[in-house]
């Protein structure tokens, strides 16, 4: 007799039935996607090869993270301390229908993870896995090369442990009607407003929106502080930095450095939060939602 895990009856996310159906660990997946610092509960069932429930099966569960996923290219030295969502319980016994309950509690790190499960009875043991990811489902790749020069990545000479400028480029989009559809639009519109006030400027240099799917933007990952703040305000896809006059990093052409006060004013007039949009001396930090509205 063999045993297989069947996901048809239950899922950690009501809208998804994509949980485990493989006996071996497969490629990482960003679906289903669970929000950072959230708790998801569901039930699972262990069935045999004839699709019959395996009553009173012994269950063990654990979680793991896919290294270098979610834009975190920290190297293996940081993987030992890499946070991963916790599963509860880690061992239990299925009921007479082969069903047991699961609660997954996610961390703040946006990344691909896996739930590992064993289901055993007196006849045999099956190892199953379920891929999922942690992150926000409303952040999108926000790249507009016509108006934004991408900086802050390995391709512009800066390695924060998050790869090229293709990875720090994600911003939140809201349903239509909410401040012109959210932070991504707010920054875009602020940029256009700035251009019309500054003839001759047609591109500005943007940096550090959010990592893919958001979550902890550990800007000092390679400086001994992986998986933690600072840079909290960039965890949600609601903020971006725009290189300003005074920047000496050489990543942004001088002609594209903004007048920081003017750019901040354009951001606020297009929906940014005034108290959290600040002049950080070499860049404008535009914040389109208060950091108190998302977990850190």
């Amino acid at each position, binding site marked *: 007799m063999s045993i297989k895990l069947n996901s048809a009856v239950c899922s950690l996310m009501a809208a998804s039935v994509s949980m485990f159906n493989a006996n071996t660990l497969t490629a990482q997946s960003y679906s289903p996607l669970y929000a950072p610092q959230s708790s998801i509960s569901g039930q699972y069932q262990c069935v045999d090869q004839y699709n019959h429930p395996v009553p009173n099966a012994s269950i063990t569960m654990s979680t793991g993270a896919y290294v270098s996923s979610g834009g975190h290219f920290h190297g293996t030295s940081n993987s030992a301390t890499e946070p991963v969502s916790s599963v509860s319980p880690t061992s239990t016994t299925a009921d007479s229908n082969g069903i047991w309950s699961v609660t997954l509690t996610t961390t703040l790190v946006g990344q691909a993870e896996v739930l590992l499960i064993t289901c055993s009875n007196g006849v045999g043991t099956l190892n199953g896995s379920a891929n999922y990811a942690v992150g926000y489902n409303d952040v999108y790749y926000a790249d507009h090369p016509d108006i934004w020069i991408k900086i802050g990545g390995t391709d512009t000479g800066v390695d924060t442990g998050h790869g090229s400028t293709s990875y720090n480029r994600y911003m939140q989009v809201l349903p239509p009607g909410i401040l012109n559809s959210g932070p991504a639009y707010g920054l875009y519109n602020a940029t256009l*407003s700035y251009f*019309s006030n500054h003839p001759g400027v047609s591109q500005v240099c943007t940096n550090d929106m959010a990592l893919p799917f958001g979550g902890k933007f550990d800007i000092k990952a390679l400086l001994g502080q992986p998986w933690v703040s600072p840079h909290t305000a960039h965890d949600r896809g609601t903020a971006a930095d725009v290189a300003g006059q005074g920047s000496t990093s050489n990543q942004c052409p001088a002609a594209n450095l903004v007048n920081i006060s003017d750019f901040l*004013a354009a951001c606020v*007039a297009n929906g940014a939060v005034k108290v959290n949009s600040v002049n950080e001396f070499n860049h404008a930090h535009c914040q389109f939602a208060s950091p*108190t509205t998302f977990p850190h």
Partner: protein
Amino acid sequence: MTIRIVGLIGFACLALFGQPSAASSPEAPQWPGAGSLSKSLEGQYVFVTPERDALMIRVPPNSDYARSGKPGIIRYDLHNRLRPAVAVRLSVTQKVNYVYEYAVDNATPASDSIGTWSLVIPSVDGEKPVMSCGEWCGGLSFAPIIRQVEMPDQPKGRAVMWTRPNGISPIGPSESRRGFRIESSCRPGFTTALFSSGIWVNIDQDLPNEVFKQLEFFNDPTWGNIPVLTFGPMFCAGSSRQAIAGNLISGIKRLLETKRLDPKSEFVRDVLAWLISEPENNPGEAAHVGHSPSGELEAEIAKALELNLSFKIP
């Protein structure tokens, strides 16, 4: 044809979309002084100076921020000791666009300089006003989030902004600047002009969350700016007579409140009475006002009424 408007006047806003412009968050209490905090204000960390020219932050005493050794009282100067006045001249082009030309003064009592100013206009799809771009350049915002500070019952709009580039002088005390221009298909209405120094207030992001919760009012992009009622391109195609009348009523009432119009003026009484009653009762009919305008301001209001509502004025 031209309308010339001189003085601290203006017209504002249409009611196509949006919510009324009243402030959504109550303002912080007045700063009583470091040694004068009453028991009832023990949980209050954010204050405004009596002159409304600075935010005062009292750092929560038991916070990590206080323990870090940073100052317990922080003053954020708003750089808003301005005395702005705006005059607008309206003309109509052959393409039946309206041209608004503004002159901005910063009167002598000011102790800060005007470095940026903006005008609230309605957020209407497809309407693209053309702004002047001289030494000061003009830009448009998009989101309809800017309050009609001078007329809280009118809807929020977006902003036409002028800022000065580096190297160009701001409008200092007792100085003035002309050459701000908008061309638009929208007819004149009362609106709010907002003036600021352009110097950004940089709140320390390490302050405790309790402080930021009490700074909610400051997130209003108009707060800390100095508002002035003026005229601007407010009534675009499709504006209803009711919306136009509502705007004109609000503006005229504001001019009466601020004593820029004489409440005993028979022309003003006639106009207000008609605006309040007639747009609904006699839609599409030209209005006949019995008394002539007196003085330049009333004359300019009469011109605006004629353009928007086909007023016949003796």
